[in-house]
């Protein structure tokens, strides 16, 4: 059985065989650096993406070096070497490295040992001394020794900028179907091809969209493209813009980076500010497969300076209106037969037919009877199905006007304006204007009892409930309270008279008739 290369660190152990290994506050053996050994570049990207989701890469990048290494026994590996902070941060690195199919080691210089695990909660120390070769990194695990020789180094900033974007789906119905508008809800950057710049500006100006923009030369393009910034853009406009070839919508992911919608950078750029050096603006374009580096920070100009105004006329205020000229337009509101069928809202019952109403009242359903109102007039008794809704919610169900088969029916042409059935007011003015023309108050009704008569104004206090008017008054007899002849039997209440000090006088002496049983006696 081979000898173990590592031995677990004991609790409280402060001296280690491996140089550079110290114990932290929790007693965990930790070196100056950590080394993450990853099998491939893909695992490296996964590791960086996962780490940027949880923590900020800005803490890692300043001390991080990426190396492509060759293993002594054959094979390649990607090594991440960075300074180690506290044990908690290394724990997180170890967890993420395991997730990315890698392994984390701690140590310094050229020798690293395995990070702590369940069997060795305080970490590992070397069991035997190791001597690394030239340009060689040795990682010591429990049961094997890995020797890596660096072949070339990679710049992490360069790597992150060169990573290929990954497509993400856009909702089928367009950007507007996404409640977050694909990250464009607050602000959208629009990169417009040079040939489309004017048309897009015209469209957005016509839509009165708040915008700002400037022309930027991208890469080796001969003409400058237009970069627009839209604050809180409308979903409809984004839908239109996203479907136009030559226009790219970019969602800002940090103050200096924007990614085209429908694509995602493998690394959270918001947590990798240090990966975007300088003050340049980076546009990650997915469809074009390019990363545009704009010179300097974007200097947006307000949209009204980007458009050309071609309006040559000026608005002029009205000088004076001619009232008198409208006199020739004045027409008379007349009643004429109409073909439009309306639900009868009232009936006018002649007084000789009123006795029939008494019988018909029994047939009315309770809702219709409760809602019905009557107005006694000289021409007859008007039964309103209900006080007009007058613009409010209309009552449902059949009204008394429809249910009563007698009398002349009135239909409602405007709220509270009733005309004989089969007639209408001409010209057909607006209902509110009709009430205004008739001079009706808020709750008033106007009744045209006949086509050739003037309307009658009915005030709300003149409406009487039908049920209260027709139902005879009931006489109630007062209940006679009978006083019971005999007093009631109750429950007695104990009250105590004052006892004198000699209350038991007479109970103390011996009985006169001889001895008695114990506990019984009388004085």
């Amino acid at each position, binding site marked *: 059985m081979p000898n173990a290369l590592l031995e677990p660190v004991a609790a409280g152990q402060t001296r280690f065989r491996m140089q550079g290994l110290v114990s932290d506050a929790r007693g965990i053996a930790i070196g100056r650096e950590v080394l993450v050994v990853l099998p491939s570049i893909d695992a490296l990207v996964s590791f960086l993406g996962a780490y940027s989701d949880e923590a900020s890469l800005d803490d890692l990048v300043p001390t991080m070096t990426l190396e492509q290494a060759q293993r002594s026994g054959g094979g390649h590996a990607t090594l991440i070497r960075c300074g180690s902070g506290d044990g908690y941060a290394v724990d997180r690195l170890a967890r993420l490295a395991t997730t990315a199919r890698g392994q984390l080691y701690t140590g310094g210089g050229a020798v690293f040992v395995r990070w702590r695990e369940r069997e060795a909660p305080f970490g590992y120390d070397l069991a035997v001394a190791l001597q690394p070769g030239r340009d060689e990194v040795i990682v010591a695990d429990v049961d094997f020794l890995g020797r890596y020789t660096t072949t070339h180094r990679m710049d992490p900033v360069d790597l992150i900028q060169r990573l290929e974007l990954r497509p993400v789906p856009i909702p089928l119905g367009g950007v507007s179907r996404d409640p977050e508008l694909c990250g464009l809800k607050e602000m959208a950057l629009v990169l417009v091809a040079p040939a489309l710049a004017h048309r897009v500006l015209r469209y957005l100006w016509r839509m009165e969209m708040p915008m700002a923009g400037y022309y930027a030369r991208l890469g080796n393009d001969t003409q400058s493209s237009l970069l627009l910034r839209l604050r809180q853009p409308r979903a409809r406009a984004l839908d239109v813009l996203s479907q136009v070839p030559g226009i790219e919508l970019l969602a800002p992911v940090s103050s200096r980076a924007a990614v085209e919608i429908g694509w995602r950078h493998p690394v959270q750029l918001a947590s990798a500010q240090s990966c975007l050096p300088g003050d340049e603006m980076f546009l990650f374009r997915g469809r074009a497969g390019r990363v545009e580096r704009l010179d300097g920070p974007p200097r947006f100009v307000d949209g009204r300076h980007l458009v050309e105004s071609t309006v040559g006329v000026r608005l002029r205020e009205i000088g004076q209106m001619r009232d008198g000229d409208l006199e020739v337009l004045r027409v008379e509101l007349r009643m004429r037969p109409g073909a439009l069928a309306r639900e009868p809202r009232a009936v006018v019952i002649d007084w000789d037919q009123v006795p029939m109403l008494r019988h018909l009242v029994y047939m009315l359903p309770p809702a219709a009877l409760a809602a019905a109102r009557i107005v006694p007039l000289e021409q007859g008794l008007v039964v309103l199905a209900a006080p007009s809704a007058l613009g409010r919610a209309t009552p449902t169900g059949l009204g008394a006007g429809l249910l009563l088969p007698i009398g002349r029916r009135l239909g409602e042409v405007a709220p509270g304006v009733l005309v004989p059935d089969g007639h209408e007011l001409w010209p057909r003015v607006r209902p509110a204007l009709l009430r205004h023309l008739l001079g009706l108050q808020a709750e008033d009704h106007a009744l045209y009892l006949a086509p050739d008569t003037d309307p009658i104004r009915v005030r709300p206090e003149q409406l009487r409930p039908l049920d209260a008017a027709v139902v005879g008054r009931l006489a109630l007899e007062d209940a006679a309270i009978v006083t019971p002849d*005999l*007093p*009631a*039997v*109750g*429950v*007695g*209440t*104990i*009250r*105590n*008279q*004052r*006892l*004198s*000090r*000699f*209350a*038991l006088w*007479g*109970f*103390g002496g011996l009985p006169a008739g001889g001895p*008695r*049983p*114990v*506990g*019984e*006696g*009388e*004085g």
Partner: protein
Amino acid sequence: MARDLRAFVTEFVVPLLAGADVWVGKPLRPRDRDEWAAELGGTSFPELDFWRLRRGQLLAAHPELPAPDHDELGLWMGLHNLLVFEHPDRQRVWAREVTWRRLEGATRTLLTLPAPEDVPTLVARHLSVGAFVDLMRAEVIVPTAVGEIRMPAREPARRFLRAGGAGREQSVPWLPQNHAPEVERLLEDALRASPLTCLLRPLLAPAGSSPLQAAVMLRERGWARAVCHAWARQKDWMTTGGAVMSALLPSLPRAPAPLPAAAGGAGSAGGVVAALPAAGALLALPGAVVPCDPHDLGAIIASLIHLHLLKVLELDTRVGLALGSREPGVLAFLALPLLLPQLASELGEPVPAVASDATAAPVVRRWTEYVDHLAELVPRSVVENLLATVVGRIVQPA
């Protein structure tokens, strides 16, 4: 309390019956009873007669009541003396403890009455004792700096009650309160003096009382109906019926067991005398044995079954499912309708087997369902026990 019959009747007896302020004062001596008994026969107390009648009408419309006699007067005086033991001024009375024991003995003498043999006497006893167990106690609550002080109400005191004058009065039921030991003992004597009260309020009945002592009432249809309705009015009718059965079953006299053969037995064969008598032999002399007439026992059982019927008619027969935890008396009470097939020949049927008209049909159906429900709930052993102990005493073998 003035040593005057009229004052005693006016201040104690009439308020006790009518429900007013019952004044408790100086204890009364048995010698007073003898003196007042003669006066009671010759003096008319119309108010007393009226309130006796009114309280009797709580049971029946036209109760037949005997004139107040020597025994009833002693009962009133005993009840009065019973309350003296809880008088708030008891501590200030100059008397030795032995004197209070003599007063207890004298009170027990007053309360010890012969068992009533007829219905009017039973009712007359119940008038006083029934009103007595319902008494309230007036208490004065005096707010002080350290909290409220409750004390029994008495005549206006000379000290701080009058000076403070801020005490409010409250009436609380007297019987459920904590009592002096003498009161606890005498209360049982008072209840034994009124078998009808023990029958109507079986939960208050003292140990040893039996419903057979008042069974003569249940043999009359009108009084039996009054008793059944009084039971049905009580809050927990099942507990009430169970208490009646609990009191009834132990009081049934045991059937005389055949004595073992004295000669030639196994115990004396070898010349060895057994230390204990053989099984079935009496270990001691029996106590007071209540005569158990089959008709009296049948009347009690029939009344309890009628209580079931009343509750079926009231739709109040929600018999709980936790019968396993119930007392044996309650189980025996619930098992009574299941004895009807055996008792019907003697006691009759509460409802006809077949409804005579449409009005009676729902009642018959509900009663049948109720009996079936009881048959599912009550253990069979309870029914068999009753068949062995009760049914045989009512239904005489042909």
